[in-house]
């Protein structure tokens, strides 16, 4: 199911109804954009590696859902968005909160994405978190930055995202909403209800499916009856694209195709990004996941690290020299084996500062537990 030939076959299928629209938005990327994409991949990886280590040392509360090996989906879907577009990431997408609109400048305080520091403050459960750490990990949002607050309930943000998309239509605004889900979550009623509504009204809603082959301990065949998860789109008469989730530019091209289509009022799309979950469902599951998935499957699933896939492209396209490509090599390695030396200094600096900020932020005071059950200014 994850073979490259089926990916290619479906690609042509899915876009046979295109309106002479380019599937190669990548051609418009400048060399500097490519280097930025690579930096973002590094940052997402470094963030995950750092959290895995912190978690192992018992410094973090809650569960880490590693995004290792799935970073190209986040960078590729987010890179081409406009600042006014909205997103709703899931549990596995922690880096998405800072990757959004990162192109506007990592340290640009006005960019429409969270700072790495804010995200770290959330992970460390500190007062400086955007939600004062009142809910855990990925359940953060910002109306100002266009990030929908999610709950734990898988797929529940799809109807909410459809509502945001409806508001765009109502306000005559051509922004789009990207909502992320695992392949397992596509079995939920909210997935159907939300996309059905969005398709009826041709809302600018794009559903990114991170098909990492596993939903906790259940393989995709037991979650979804169609050959590809993207086939679910047929029931709504909307495009169901398949992207190679290890290839950041393929993800980028498919996303931009769907985004431009949505901006023109043509309605929603589903983009299935084929990938593989590198570790356990959460860090608590790392050991068991070594048993319910066999070694061969894991090795195959991790054999196409998104960083090396991209580097290969860059070198072939002469956007990066082989020497530069080899300067930092965190790819194809286990999280616990990579060290700071494997990442470029600007990536290390960005996270170091953010973690220091998070660690130094105080915990919220206990009295806060009783606040904000209802809107306070109206009381």
């Amino acid at each position, binding site marked *: 199911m994850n073979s490259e030939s089926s990916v290619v076959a479906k690609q042509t299928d899915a876009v046979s109804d295109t309106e002479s629209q380019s599937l190669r938005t990548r051609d418009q990327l400048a060399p500097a954009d490519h280097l930025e994409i690579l930096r973002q991949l590094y940052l997402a990886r470094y963030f995950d590696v750092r959290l895995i280590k912190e978690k192992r040392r018992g410094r973090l509360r809650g569960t880490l859902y590693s995004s290792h090996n799935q970073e190209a989906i986040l960078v590729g879907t987010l890179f081409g968005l406009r600042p006014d577009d909205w997103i709703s990431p899931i549990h596995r997408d922690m880096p998405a909160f800072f990757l959004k609109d990162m192109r506007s400048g990592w340290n640009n305080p006005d960019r429409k994405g969270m700072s790495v520091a804010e995200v770290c403050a959330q992970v460390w459960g500190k007062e400086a978190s955007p*939600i*004062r750490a*009142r*809910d855990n990990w990925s*359940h953060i*949002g*910002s*109306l100002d930055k266009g990030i*929908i*607050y999610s*709950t*734990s*309930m898988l797929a*529940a*943000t*799809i*109807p*909410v*995202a*459809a*509502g*945001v*998309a*409806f*508001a*765009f*239509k*109502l*306000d005559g605004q051509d922004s789009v909403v990207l909502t992320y889900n695992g392949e397992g979550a596509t079995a939920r*009623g*909210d997935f159907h*209800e*939300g996309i*059905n*509504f969005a398709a*009826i009204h041709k809302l600018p809603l794009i559903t990114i499916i991170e098909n990492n082959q596993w939903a906790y301990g259940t393989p995709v065949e037991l979650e979804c009856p169609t050959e590809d998860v993207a086939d679910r789109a047929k029931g709504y008469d909307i495009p169901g694209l398949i992207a190679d989730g290890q290839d950041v530019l393929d993800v980028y091209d498919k996303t931009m195709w769907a985004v431009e289509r949505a901006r023109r009022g043509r309605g929603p799309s589903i983009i299935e990004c084929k990938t593989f979950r590198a570790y356990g469902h959460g860090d608590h599951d790392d050991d068991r996941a070594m048993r319910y998935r066999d070694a061969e499957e894991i090795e195959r699933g991790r054999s196409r690290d998104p960083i090396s896939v991209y580097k290969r492209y860059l070198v072939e396209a002469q956007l990066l020299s082989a020497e530069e490509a080899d300067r930092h090599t965190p790819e194809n390695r286990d999280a616990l084996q990579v060290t700071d030396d494997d990442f470029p200094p600007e990536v290390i600096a960005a996270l170091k500062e953010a973690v220091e900020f998070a660690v130094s932020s105080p915990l919220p005071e206990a009295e*806060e537990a009783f*606040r*904000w*059950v*209802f*809107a*306070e*200014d*109206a009381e």
Partner: protein
Amino acid sequence: MSAAAAQAQAKNYLTALKDALHEEMERDPNLVCMGEDIGILGGAFGVTEGLLDRFGPLRVVDMPISESAIVGAAIGLAMRGKRVVVEMQFIDFISCGFDQIVNNAATMCYRSAGKVNLPIVIRGPSGGYGGGGPYHSQQNEAWFAHSPGLKVVCPSTPSDAKGLLRASIRDPNPVVFYEVKELYRKRDIVEEIPDGEFLVPLGHATIRREGSDVTVVTYGNMVHFCLKAAERLAEQDVQAEVIDIRTIVPLDEETIRTSIEKTNRVVVVNEASRTCGFAGELLARISEFGFELLDAPPVRVTRADTPVPWVKPLESAVLPSVDGIFEAAMKVVRY
């Protein structure tokens, strides 16, 4: 004003709700209505009649049969600065949107440290006595009263229906709004309603009948049952004070306490089933703040712990009755 003119202006419960929606839609261009069959049809009961023609399909949205998406989309719209009124075709079907209400809308303000307010009203027809059977008779407000972050409202008169709906729409919090469908078109329950900025603030009970011998605390359709029981009690020289709490959350404990200080006896009446119904919560609170005020053990009158059956003899057997309320009050008074 002549009697005929006054008569002409008297509004039933349904018209009062309809007027509230029209007036609020007119007043606030950011208000959107969503629900099943609310536009072209004008609502299963007609509460949303005329809205589509007046405000168009982007503000009066005929939704697919997707309760979860209806509430979810309302949350999304509210995140973009809209106010939303959602209709549940029958409040029984609210269970299909339950997760979005209790896990998403109810907790949003809390989870966002006060940054996100969701001004959403989820309204719909509720209650039994119409032969609706298990899925068209529920009074399931306790589910939502049990979910911090939601306000819960249940008007018993046309003017309250209008004033409370308008106040609910303007409230910055999600509100679950129970309309009593048995009252929608009841001929003997009509009222003249003041024009203009008429609001009934949430969280304020009202005394429907004054009395000194026993306090009867209730809301919704049961208010009318209790008033009938009070008339019969009066024939026995028992003066019942009937309190209509009007909003379940937030609850006006003060009005209840003041009354019990006077009567020292209390009966609590709700239409929902007994175990963990809101009557139980009322009794618990009264016991906590007023145990020493009471001269008799408090009593509640509720539906039996059964679903609401369909045919008349069965339905009547499980739902509260005027007789039952009368007897409960006599028991408390005679204790």
